[in-house]
């Protein structure tokens, strides 16, 4: 894939004000508002980890989800303007088109992660290097189903409704995933939450508790969503373009 193409796609993202507001600004501001007053809470709501760590990862999940899903918004916009048809009469393959969009979304997610880690450090989050790395790895893996979902939404949802659709999806997934408060126990709410990919993003904060942050259930849920959303994305793409 051409590096110029990738570089310019990233440049477009950096010039987009919404990226700074929703993927970077929102999470940081909310983090200080929520975690700041609970700075000294060492075991947030029975989660086993401190409030600054919990909310750091919770808001990384929120910002990174928004960042990766925004790839879908870009696909939808390019479909509506006919730009994707223009690209189809270039040597750019569909695979590379999606790869660029997903990598751009991931780049934005990485920016969110870095900014949020720095914010976390200012509230006293200190972890061994090994834990930072493992946590980051889990978050990046946990975003894979969202990348597939972004491609599916980009082909299913019109540009007029994609903003609200993305915002709504992110809000619900963040809420049910435990961005705003830890989800504990065995109730219906917790059971539903544990079936969602966003829950496991937030759970990435549990690294370093002596056990695996995800466990078998976590991996299973993330893999299942990846498979299901990839199939949906492939179907949506075919239905949309009539290509196989």
């Amino acid at each position, binding site marked *: 894939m*051409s*590096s*110029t*193409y990738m570089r*310019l*796609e990233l*440049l*477009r993202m950096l*010039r*987009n004000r919404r990226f700074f507001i929703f993927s970077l600004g929102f999470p940081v501001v909310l983090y200080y508002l929520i975690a700041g007053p609970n700075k000294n809470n060492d075991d947030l709501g029975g989660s086993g980890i401190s409030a600054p760590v919990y909310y750091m990862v919770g808001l990384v999940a929120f910002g990174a989800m928004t960042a990766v899903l925004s790839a879908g918004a870009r696909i939808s*916009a*390019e479909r509506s*303007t*006919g*730009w994707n*048809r*223009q690209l*189809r*009469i*270039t*040597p*750019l393959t569909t695979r590379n088109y999606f790869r660029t969009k997903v990598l751009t979304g991931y780049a934005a997610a990485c920016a969110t992660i870095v900014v949020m880690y720095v914010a976390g450090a200012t509230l006293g989050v200190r972890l061994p290097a090994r834990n930072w790395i493992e946590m980051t790895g889990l978050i990046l893996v946990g975003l894979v189903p969202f990348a597939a979902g972004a491609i599916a939404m980009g082909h299913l949802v019109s540009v007029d409704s994609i903003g609200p659709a993305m915002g709504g999806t992110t809000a619900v997934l963040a809420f049910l995933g435990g961005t705003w408060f830890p989800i504990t126990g065995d109730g219906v709410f917790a059971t539903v939450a544990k079936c969602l990919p966003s829950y496991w993003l937030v759970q990435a904060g549990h690294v370093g508790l002596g056990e695996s942050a995800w466990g078998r259930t976590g991996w299973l849920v993330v893999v299942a969503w990846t498979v299901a959303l990839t199939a949906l994305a492939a179907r949506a793409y075919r239905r949309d373009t009539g290509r196989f």
Partner: protein
Amino acid sequence: MRAVRGIDLDIAPGETVALLGPNGAGKSTTIEMLLGLTRPDAGTVSVFGLAPERAVDEGNVGAMLQTGSLIRDLSVGELVAMIASLYPEPLDVHDALELAGIASLAGRRTQKLSGGETQRARFAVAIVADPELLVLDEPTVAMDVESRRAFWSAMRAFVARDKTVLFATHYLEEADAYADRVVLMAAGTIVADGPPTEIKAMVGSRRIRATLPGADPAMLAALPGVTDVDLRGEAISLVCSDSDVALRALLDASPDVRDIEVTGAGLEEAFVQLTHEESAAAPA
């Protein structure tokens, strides 16, 4: 519904071909098949001996589709560079902008271009691959006269590099002025194919206008080669199936005829006549 029915069209390298026809004639569908965006139900499409998708991948074909705007948050130069980066042997970005006549807009963001400028930026996107075949689907639709002229001069600059161009239009003047071959489509089929002059001649008529004091309509109608006579005072207007014969006969019969003017029937008349014949003949 079938937009195109059994068309057979060969374009030789170096030709500038206008695909002319009313809305719904099948121009866009033909172009989409040529670009590999649509597959024909039956038959084959080949571009330089390759399947359309292959020809596109090799950078042999550039196109400006009928609808489409540009992506935002890039300058015109960056956008063209982005597309250029996808091709094996693209033009220099600055050269492409120069050819499109928008070198001065290289630094401007795409969302700040006027309609005509956007079309020329899209033109730069289409030619940056340095394609052998350039396809333009109604490129000047909704442009004002000034932008249209600028656009066609950009196209001529590109054609001067020994390129083949196929453009769809429903502006007859454009086909007449810029194409060396006109393919007339109606209701999904080709109804005429040839140089603009030949298309006009297919309708067969030319018109002789002149001033003739005391003209006698019956005498004029009896002249060989004349099919219709229109008389207004001293001004006569003769529609002729053979204007050469008619003119000689007119000069012999009325030596005091003056201000003689012979004009071909417009492409517009040919267009209306030929497309109507076809629509009438086509099954509903």
